[in-house]
């Protein structure tokens, strides 16, 4: 995804022939990645763009003889009240779990652990490992862990409530969006934390020494030194988690599968459900193409933003 955005932003200058020869080893080195991207991203994306202009289906007469329908799928999408709802859900999910949840929690964890490590607290490593564990799990296992937490009948949360003499609460039925946001925040905070921990290590400590000598308190030191140093890497982290959260599929599928009704149906699930539950491949592809365009827009905005700040 990023190479497309990067390529668009790069200066377009004609490359002289001998320069091309000089760069041949690099191009050769890039080839495997380029071929993989072409085979597993560009090719299928182009196919989805093509399929979105047809009424291809998995069953019925449209499966035997798909027809070219022009922009009909996109027209339908614009008038589809469910799609408006799906976009709203996606925005709430991304802002809630990526921008607020993962980013803020990841940054806070990084600051805490960095602080603890500088002071030599042994528990810092343990906390670090615990956060990392949530992230190294396969997503589907993370999803089932939260099913085990939220489950109405046998879930840990309701078992706990029963011990306290209250409950049970129908977590996924009454607070579906909040539940998936919490699960995804838990799952993804480690990534942001790792990035920020790396960035914090690069800030030379003599800046802090100088600031301390000047009499700056902890808050001023954070605001004037730590935060500006983290900004460029922060923008990239935000870009990365926004795009991956926007495409979230497995976690929500295991937890609520978009339900109840369409209350947690995000764009990736909607594309999947249209294509593989309603078997309307054409319409599902149109949704996927729109999703791709939105992700490109995100990529461009964030890249520009991070360059301007850097």
């Amino acid at each position: 995804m990023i190479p497309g955005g990067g390529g668009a932003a790069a200066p377009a200058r004609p490359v002289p022939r001998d320069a091309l020869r000089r760069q041949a080893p690099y191009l050769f080195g890039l080839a495997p990645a380029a071929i993989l991207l072409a085979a597993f991203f560009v090719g299928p994306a182009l196919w989805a763009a093509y399929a979105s202009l047809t009424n291809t289906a998995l069953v019925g007469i449209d499966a035997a003889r798909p027809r070219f329908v022009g922009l009909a799928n996109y027209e339908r999408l614009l008038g589809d009240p469910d799609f408006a709802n799906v976009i709203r859900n996606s925005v709430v999910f991304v802002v809630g779990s990526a921008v607020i949840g993962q980013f803020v929690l990841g940054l806070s964890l990084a600051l805490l652990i960095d602080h603890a490590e500088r002071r030599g607290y042994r528990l810092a490593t343990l906390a670090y490992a615990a956060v990392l564990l949530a992230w190294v799990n396969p997503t589907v296992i993370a999803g089932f862990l939260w099913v085990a937490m939220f489950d109405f009948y046998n879930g840990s949360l309701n078992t706990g409530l029963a011990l306290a003499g209250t409950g049970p609460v129908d977590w996924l039925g009454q607070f579906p969006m909040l539940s998936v946001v919490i699960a995804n925040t838990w799952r993804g905070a480690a990534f942001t934390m790792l990035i920020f921990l790396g960035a914090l290590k690069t800030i030379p400590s003599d800046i802090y020494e100088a600031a301390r000598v000047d009499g700056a308190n902890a808050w001023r030191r954070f605001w004037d030194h730590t935060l500006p140093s983290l900004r460029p890497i922060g923008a990239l982290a935000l870009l990365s988690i926004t795009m991956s959260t926007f495409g979230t599929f497995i976690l929500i599928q295991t937890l609520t599968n978009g339900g109840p009704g369409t209350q947690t149906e995000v764009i990736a699930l909607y594309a999947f459900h249209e294509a593989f539950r309603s078997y309307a491949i054409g319409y599902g592809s149109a949704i996927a193409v729109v999703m791709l365009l939105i992700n490109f827009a995100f990529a461009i905005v964030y890249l520009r933003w991070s360059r301007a700040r850097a």
Partner: protein
Amino acid sequence: MTRTIDRRTFLKAAAATGIVVACGGDQGAPAGGGGTAKGTISGTVTVSYADEAGLKPKYVQLAADGLRAKYSGVDVKIDHQKIGSGDFYTKLLLALNAGDVPDVIHVGGDKIGELADAGHIEPLDGYLKQWEDWSKVYPDAVKSGVTYQGKVWAIPYGLDTRFLFYRKDVLDKAGVGATWTGPKNVDDILEVAKAVKSKVAGVIPYALYAGPAGDSGTANHAFIPLLWAYGGDLQKDGKWIGDSPALRKVLDYYGRTYRQDLSPKEILTTAKPWTAMREKLGLKGELALLFEGAWNYGGWVTKDKAATERNVGYALFPTATGGPSFTIGGPGTAWYVTAKSKNKDAAWEFVKAFNTKEIVAKLNIEDPHPVARTDSAEVAEFKADKYLVDSTESLKKARFAPPDANFGKVIGVIQKATARVATGEMSADDAAKRYTDELRQAVGADKVITQ
């Protein structure tokens, strides 16, 4: 994942002309198998089926052994997948579209229309002419259940019927009485559920499937019987019925059920909610009322026969006005030969080897369904089982969903409408209007009427 699979479909689309020609050729000569002489059958047959409960493998094996014994040149490759039938079907469709086809498949008889239109399955009429059992022991009702556009596409063995199951012990505690034999009308179901809710702690009153999570159960085990109970129908003269007074009453029934917390909201989010509901009613006594597939009784009896017979009652579905009770039937899961199979004659021989009097009787005793073959019902063990006899009897009062290629799409529309009302997102009347819009979108505006 989505995109890689799409690409395969593309390859298929790119070669569309070739495939259409190939299919046309095959369909033009369905009787090709009819002329096959005995003993010339050879090669490998791949049989693909899903079974989570694990009751079928030994019978599939039995059929495969029978086929191997009869034709020395035939080998049977069994592809048993331990996944739900819905997931299996999606997987199978992708394989069929990619051209990676098993010879024999085992899916719901209600898929005939959409599979036939897609050119995925082979009509069996040519083979049936040579199979005298078909005319002798299969009743016309069974035949019509697997006939689409004048051709027979699948061989069923165990038919579907459904009952309203109830817990006698719970209803006794709720003051409804241990002698209750079923609701007088549709509202009576909710009255009984309310009595359970107010008087029996720790028991879910009623499970009314709704939304996409309920899968086809939302349609077959909830929406469609309710629609019939209120005097409505899915189709009239081949057109799908959108908004109608009966539809509004059905959706209002959903609204009343979920607003009063008579049916649990987890049905809307839990994957395969029926797993928990069936267990709670049949084994745990934690659910009082459930309209479900009659076959579930078999699982409960296997676990604890005495307790099941003591505590679980079953009744037909009532109408809104206290008219004669009914149920919803279906062809059950059936065996198909795929259109792109390279070994159709041998594939058909497998289907035949499975659908013998003995296998059909034994499997349906173990996994209780009314039998598709009348001679299987004559087996002593089958006749001695009161539940099986009652199930078979219930089919006389059964109605059936139309064998329409768009039925699968309509189920999707039903799921959305019921979820909207059950979650409280929409009123019954608004959801009924949306139902019409979405029905038009799904099947084409010219195929939808309102009443």
